[in-house]
């Protein structure tokens, strides 16, 4: 009898609901568990990618190294959801947003303890690994220093 090949499904832990379980950048989840949000940098041409990619479209190399999303990015824009797609109802209300780090941008959620009044387009924010109440993992945008 042949043994069923085991699938690496680490990515199934990403976000409130994950829609894909296997990816070549599954290591992202291990880094997230260790408190780090990582992108990839192409060893071929030096291009930085977030979200992380296994393959570089610029030089077609698949030789990548993990690089941490570090320091502050600027808040480009955001939206506060008052209505959620199936599976996200318990998270309401929540805000999705985009941070600009110059070399790359990061799409994610704003930390739930930050009030709407604190938010201003262009403000600096950091990207922080986060464990959801369900035990699943994502990352959130937070204040640059504790308030």
């Amino acid at each position, binding site marked *: 009898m042949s043994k069923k090949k085991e699938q690496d499904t680490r*990515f199934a832990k*990403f*976000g*409130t*609901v*994950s*829609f*894909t379980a296997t*990816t070549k950048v599954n290591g992202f989840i291990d880094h997230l568990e260790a408190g780090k949000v990582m992108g990839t940098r192409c060893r071929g041409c030096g291009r930085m990618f*977030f*979200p992380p990619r296994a393959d570089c479209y610029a030089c077609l190399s698949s030789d990548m190294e993990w690089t941490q999303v570090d320091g502050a990015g600027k808040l*480009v*824009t*955001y*939206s*506060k*959801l*008052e*209505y*959620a*797609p*199936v*599976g*996200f*109802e318990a*998270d309401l209300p*929540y805000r*999705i*947003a*985009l941070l600009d780090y110059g070399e*790359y*941008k*990061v*799409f*994610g*959620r704003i930390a739930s303890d930050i009030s709407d009044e604190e938010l201003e*387009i262009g403000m600096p924010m950091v990207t922080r690994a986060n464990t959801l109440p369900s035990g699943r993992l*994502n990352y959130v945008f937070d204040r640059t220093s504790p308030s």
Partner: protein
Amino acid sequence: MAKVGIIGVGQSSFVRGYPGSVRELAFEGFKEAMADVGISNKDIGASVVCSAPEYDKQRSPAGVFAEYLGLVPQPTFYMESLCSSSSMGLRVAYSLIKSGLHDVVAVIGFQKMSEISSAESQERMGRGADIQWESPFGTMMPAYYAMYARAHMNAYGTTPEDLALIRVKASTYGQINEKAVYRKPVTLEMFSDKTSPMAGPVAAPLRVGDCCANADGSSCIIVANEEKAKAFSDKPIWILGLGAASTAVNLAGRDLFTGLTTARQAARQAYEMAGLGPKDIDVAEVHDCFTIAELMAYENLGFAEPGEGKELIKSKETYKEGSIPVNVDGGLLSKGHPIGATGGSQIRTIVLQLRGEAGEMQVKDPAIGLVHNIGGVGLYGNVTILGR
């Protein structure tokens, strides 16, 4: 170069809860287009069936429809680019005809959205974005467009009231379009009345009234080479320009948040191919899946400078009597947005306008019309320019 013409247009009424199967829904748009041109289904050399998958159970609808519509044994296949599927279908039909492979091609768009709940529909539409890196955060189309709205407001001082004016315009024409799903009036006051459903929160800064109406519907466009177009029709409408573009699916891969690069690029291509510019357009259909989408379209198509789109709606220049009438059939906001049928319906509206057959919605003597049809959050952009 020989021209390619549109000789027949049709659409079903856009409704909630169509009481039939998808093949029967497709038949409605097809029947109207066939009656419009008066040809036999044996005159059609191929059919392109367009929709966004996942809303219905039928896999590979092209073959099912071709049999139901009497289009076998001619070749048929499926075309998908989310909400711009049937504009992409028209692009493919154009190339099938230009290549000489076929003389006459039917572009059939459809979507039956009402078999699933609105929240399920949001989840499916949301999966038209990046399912690996964005969807796990709980994204949906209104929220993505709301991010563009916030950026536009921040950069140019656009207000929620400016956006509401676009919905008010849509309802003006939805009321007189007998094919529209939403036929009630919408007033600016409704947006500030907390008891009105229009003011209900969805994804700030967008409200319920800023969002298009889901609907079931079908459309059909019959396209022919110059010889057949002239033989079959005494009022062909010619395809003068076509543009199409794509961009990064994840917003993290984009640089512009106050407009859609794909719309700009598709418009530039279409204008160049037609040898025309924004000032030559007499009537337009734009992809107003959300009010902000129409405002950005004004700017991306060159009807207004970046940031000045709000002036067009405030001065009512995009009303039927204005300098550039836009969506005078109610648009996606009031006519409804059955994903795969939408592009074909927009094209039908412009064809009827150019023929002078738009009834109460008729703009005064237009010669050149434009269709702007977007898939996803500006992931796919299609612009088509038509003329008499």
